[in-house]
């Protein structure tokens, strides 16, 4: 295996120039329950769901009715304001139920999978001859488009926009998150094809990998390679964009998740929509944290059972990593984008005099008002307690410590709260996504909800600026 890789690396060493990006600010939080390097096929389930809420800002218009049978890759709904963007079924089966919430908002499309899978097949021209327009149309028609997101605003890319570059981060630095060297293991051909096809859509494709990466990723061609090192959020694509080619006013870049690139690639190799997903199941209450090969929208419960998540305590199940993920329930389903399923113990407990400085160093703190800095190697098992209450912004300089961009985070957040659009623009709102503020949520002594503030501000920008 190793020698093959080396050979591959040598072959490509001439075409593949890489640059180094070193990030200094941030926080590498070490948590208990990291997934071990084992990939297992997830237990069989026929219980799937597609969640329109995974696609921020999309108003779903249904294309199928309850009880109708669908093939894998068949569109279930489209976006009301971008009707070219279609969202397809990850499996073949029957649309069992359309679950709605308040104001008839669609929450879940429950699909009962057939025992024998059949998929919608698209006719593909020869890959070498595919034009940019054809690529775009195929991605839209096949339901692959939602994999492509855009900055500014961190929403699904507008197919009519002209990005200056496409960025792919194959370095996940968030605590307990899936390692793409493992996720993408054995998916080299699909990944390379995905990059090749994306390269048709923009003048440049940037691929960032961990400086520690020893997989085929360092040999991927047809893109600019960047080796990133440093603490979280170094793996955030937004931080990488900022250091590689920052977004200026009026510019658009697209971003694609690392495994999503492989999914796109497989579509172009086979002609069928590929919904396979490798996820890391991790967290301190999980006895056997490891990787599972599964499918977008698969039921979570059997996976958690297989990974032996502690059922005696009340758990927080998170689609995504512990800093940016979405809380969900055990009877729910995997989201569209995440490669990590995090499990934490809930923290609804009181701690007597827990606010005293230098007390309770078992809870991690970036601040030296706790003794946890004395144990840099220690692994923590945090719960979901707020560890305090929200207060006015008092302390200055703490946000900058975890924000490796040339942007003033506190001033930007204040502009967001004041809904001052001009100020937001000036201070760099176009370059950021909520996830870039996740460590500010984490470390703020005033317990402010920075990610929520930024998301709201970006939504305001979409309606006001477009």
């Amino acid at each position, binding site marked *: 295996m190793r020698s093959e890789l080396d050979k591959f690396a040598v072959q490509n060493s001439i075409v593949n120039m890489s640059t180094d990006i070193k990030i200094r600010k941030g926080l590498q939080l070490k948590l208990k329950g990291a997934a071990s390097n084992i990939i297992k096929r997830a237990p069989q389930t026929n219980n799937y769901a597609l969640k329109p809420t995974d696609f921020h800002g999309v108003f779903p218009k249904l294309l199928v009715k309850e009880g109708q049978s669908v093939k894998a890759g068949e569109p279930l709904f489209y976006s009301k304001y971008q009707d070219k963007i279609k969202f397809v079924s990850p499996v073949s089966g029957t649309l069992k139920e359309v679950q709605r919430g308040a104001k008839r908002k669609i929450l879940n499309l429950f699909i009962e999978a057939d025992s024998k899978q059949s998929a919608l097949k698209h006719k593909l021209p020869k890959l070498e001859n595919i034009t940019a327009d054809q690529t775009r149309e195929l991605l839209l028609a096949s339901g692959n488009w939602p994999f492509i997101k855009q900055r500014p605003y961190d929403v699904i890319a507008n197919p009519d926009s002209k990005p200056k570059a496409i960025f792919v981060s194959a370095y996940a630095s968030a605590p307990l998150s899936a390692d793409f060297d493992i996720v993408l293991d054995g998916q080299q051909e699909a990944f390379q094809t995905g990059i090749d096809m994306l390269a048709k859509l923009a003048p440049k494709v940037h691929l960032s990998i961990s400086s520690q990466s020893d997989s085929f990723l360092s040999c991927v061609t047809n893109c600019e390679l960047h080796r990133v090192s440093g603490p979280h959020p170094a793996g955030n694509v937004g931080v990488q964009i900022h250091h590689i080619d920052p977004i*200026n*006013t009026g510019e658009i870049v697209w971003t694609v998740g690392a495994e999503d690139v492989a999914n796109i690639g497989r579509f172009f190799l086979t002609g069928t929509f590929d919904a396979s997903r490798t996820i890391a199941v991790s967290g301190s209450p999980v006895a056997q944290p490891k990787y599972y090969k599964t499918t977008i929208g698969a039921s979570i419960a059997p996976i958690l059972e297989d990974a032996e998540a502690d059922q005696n305590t009340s758990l*927080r199940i*998170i689609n995504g990593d*512990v*800093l940016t*993920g979405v*809380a969900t329930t055990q009877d729910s389903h995997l989201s569209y984008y995440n490669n990590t399923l995090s499990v*934490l113990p*809930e*923290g*609804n*407990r*009181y*701690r*007597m005099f*827990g*606010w*005293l*400085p230098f007390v*309770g160093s078992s*809870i991690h703190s*970036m*601040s*030296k*008002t*706790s003794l946890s800095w004395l144990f840099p190697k220690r692994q923590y098992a*945090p*719960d*979901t*307690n*707020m*560890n*305090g*209450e*929200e*207060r*006015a*912004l*008092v*302390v*200055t*300089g703490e946000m900058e410590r975890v924000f490796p961009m*040339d942007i*003033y985070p*506190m*001033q930007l957040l204040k502009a967001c709260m004041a809904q001052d659009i001009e100020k937001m623009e*000036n*201070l760099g709102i176009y370059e950021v996504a909520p996830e870039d503020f996740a*460590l500010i*949520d*984490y*470390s703020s*002594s*005033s*317990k402010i*909800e*920075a*990610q*929520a503030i930024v998301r709201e501000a970006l939504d305001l920008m979409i309606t006001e600026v477009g």
Partner: protein
Amino acid sequence: MMKLREKLDQLKKPFAKGAKWERFAPSVNAFDTFLFVPNHTTHKGAHIRDAVDLKRTMVTVIIALVPALLYGIYNTGYQYFIQTSEAFTFIDAFLHGAIKILPMIAVSYGVGLAIEFAFAVYRGHEVNEGYLVTGLLIPMIMPVDIPLWMVGLSVAFAVLIAKEAFGGTGMNILNPALTARAFAFFAYPTYMSGNKVWVSEASNVDGISGETILGSLASGAEVNYSMFEMFSGAIPGSIAETSTLWVLVGAAILIFTGVGSWRIMLGSVLGAAGMGFLFNLWGANALMDFSWFNHLIVGGFAFGVVFMATDPVSAAQTQKGKWIYGVLVGVLCILIRVFNPAYPEGVMLAILLMNVFAPTIDHYVIEANINKRKKRSLKTAAVQTA
């Protein structure tokens, strides 16, 4: 512990959402959250949170203040007994100071927290912990014999006008504690300056006079204190400002924990030292001749720079801004000392003045960042059109 928790939950029932006294919930929560970190869990954003909160941060500042406070209490008694030439023990001196100072602290906390609680209930937010520091700082920077009602009035002025009028914690322009002192200073000058206020009972007992070092320099008198006395703090002055030694212990705590900005502290020291050195070269009067390193250890300079200039809300908020702000506090402090014999102590006015200018400093620092971004945009636009 669980028993106590159950009891508290029982007591808090009338303050729950929808219950009779819901409006007053912030006032009971303020006490409850000091006993227990609440069981609130994350609902949006990051699912895990750092152990630090504003309570922990503010209590760290209080811990940093304690050494200077304890020395201030002792020094109050010490100054009194050596002036009256009575025999005394360490305990006597400490008790004399404690009897004078503890009521001041009680009044400061009582008045200030009452206003804070009232505003929290009125505005419907939780009580912020900031006043715990302000409330202790105010008596520490007053002369020992100031009547308690003046302490109360200064506190009320500071909290109402300097803080709540601007929107409460985190919004104020001026440091509230220094505003309280400035109020007292200009409203009751006879209690706040001169040579009869700095030593306990000086205005009642004829034998006692206590001029501060800066006061004597301003009036052209000789200074009879050694450098060691100035540094250790065995000199007359406001209650807890005299001992540079114990202020430095506090500074070490603030810098180590990261709660106080070392940039501001170092900037101020450099600014004051530089300015003092320039005046030493000029040397036109006694104050100009007063050596630059002595400027750093007399008066309230050390205390002001460590505990007041570093107030994150009223100081500059950008890293670069903190340097500029710090240096200017130091420079202005010495300027005011040397050129304004009416205000022998310059640090209060220097910090308040720089509080006013801090937003301007930040504005220019941030504007530079904005311009950099704009230039980048223009450059790429030019490349694209070319």
